[in-house]
């Protein structure tokens, strides 16, 4: 309920303040288990990807985010879990006995759709960094879950890391063909990188330095 209200507001704000140019929206997974993999530039990334989904399906869509950031205080943790619907992942865990991806496994078993940002951090806006390998463990464990790459541009310009002032820009969202499990993790990561480099070269983006 709270989540629906929040994301209804987000939908309107995203449509009015930003404006999205979405290519191949129909490739977004309509049912789980599935994994949406996107590049990470801004807090808006999650908002926008959630806003692309129908409200009735939100409860089954789970963004995966850093526990040390989103669950750092009880209040933040409550909001992250109940309003944003986030699954926490420990980026820096001393305890080796617990698999940091445990929450993700569980969600995929329950036929949920995960939203993952394998760059790990928002980093410098509009610059892609190396992809972390965690995603390949998920894909290996759930070889039947399609992995859908989504490349976004412009969200880092609208709200980059470290800023609280939203400046409107039209943003591009390019959805790619889903990747099926190729058999091993290295091939999977190479395939994913390849897919992202294709998506990011679909358009000449205005420079932003």
């Amino acid at each position, binding site marked *: 309920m709270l989540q629906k209200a929040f994301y209804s507001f987000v939908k309107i704000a995203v449509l009015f303040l930003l*404006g999205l*140019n979405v290519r191949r929206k129909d490739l977004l997974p309509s049912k789980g288990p599935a994994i949406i993999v996107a590049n990470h530039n801004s807090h808006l990334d999650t908002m926008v990807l959630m806003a692309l989904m129908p409200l009735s399906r939100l409860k089954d869509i789970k963004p995966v985010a850093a526990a040390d950031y989103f669950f750092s205080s009880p209040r933040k943790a409550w909001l992250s879990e109940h309003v944003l619907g986030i699954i926490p992942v420990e980026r820096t865990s001393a305890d080796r006995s617990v698999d940091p991806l445990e929450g993700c496994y569980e969600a995929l078993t329950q036929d949920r759709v995960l939203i993952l940002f394998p760059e790990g951090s928002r980093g410098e*806006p509009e610059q892609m960094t190396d992809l972390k390998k965690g995603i390949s463990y998920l894909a290996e464990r759930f070889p039947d879950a399609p992995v859908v790459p989504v490349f976004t541009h*412009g969200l880092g*310009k609208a709200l*980059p890391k470290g*800023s609280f*002032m939203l*400046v*409107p*820009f*039209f*943003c591009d969202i390019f959805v790619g063909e889903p990747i099926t499990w190729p058999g091993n993790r290295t091939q999977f990561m190479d395939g994913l990188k390849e897919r992202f480099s294709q998506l990011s070269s679909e358009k*000449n983006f*205005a*420079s*932003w*330095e």
Partner: protein
Amino acid sequence: MKLLAIHWALIGIWALLTLASIVVFVVSKRSSKDMSELVQRTQSWWVMVAIFTIAFLVSQTISIIVFALISFLALKEYFSMIPTRRADRRVLFWAYLSIPVQYFWVYDHYYGMFAVFIPVYMFLFLPFASLLSQQTDGFLKSVGTLNWGLMLCVFSISHAAFLLILPATPESSAGGAGLLLFLIFLTQFNDVAQYTWGKLFGRRKIIPGVSPNKTWEGFLGGVATTFVLAMLIAPLVTPLDLAHAAAAGLLIAIAGFVGDVTVSALKRDLGVKDTGSLIPGHGGILDRIDSLTFTAPLFFHFIRYFYY
């Protein structure tokens, strides 16, 4: 309810749109070529005319807000397609904020401030706001491009809204609403006419370095059509006499063409085909209002000089 001249004009536009849609429908059924873009374009016209009609009939304030939104979308499109500097985020934010302010002057009937707010105050303020970041690399280019965008998308377009608040005159009961309808209809019809004449008879390229599809035949055909149409419509919704109506027709047709190719030059420089994807079949909002950015201020001052 008694129908006023302005209502008849709106009915005329809807009738014309219906007629055009039938023609497009028949042509697209008979033609072997792919006409989906033309069909999409026509569908988008229905949406645009509907929004315009509703705003027009509901209230003047709503119409002013609609124009402010058009400026916002156009400026957003412009900022999204040009190279910008990260250091100028705050400057872009101020530029956006000038939109509600500029349209408030329209709402407030404050002509003196309306006419100078962007070309004087924002013009001086933006470079100041930009230098506060103390990053001089690309300063000149940044200030130049931001100011031009603000003039094109906000200042120019706000003149269309200012037409609205001009009062009725003894010669024309339709007042500002009639003038706005005259301007918008002729500007948009001129675009369509130039396109259609060009498609049918276009042979000699007029400005191939900027816009390879534009031809002399399209340009002259469009100018002639708009010229005749201006003289026919003017007595219905404007105070213009025949000579002034003819001059206004030429002004709108030629300025519309120049506005169109100006935005084309901008797009060519940036290497993009359309300014956006907001209006199916047309491209972005700037693709649709490119002519209006030139016709609105010129027609406004023409009217103001001779009639107000």
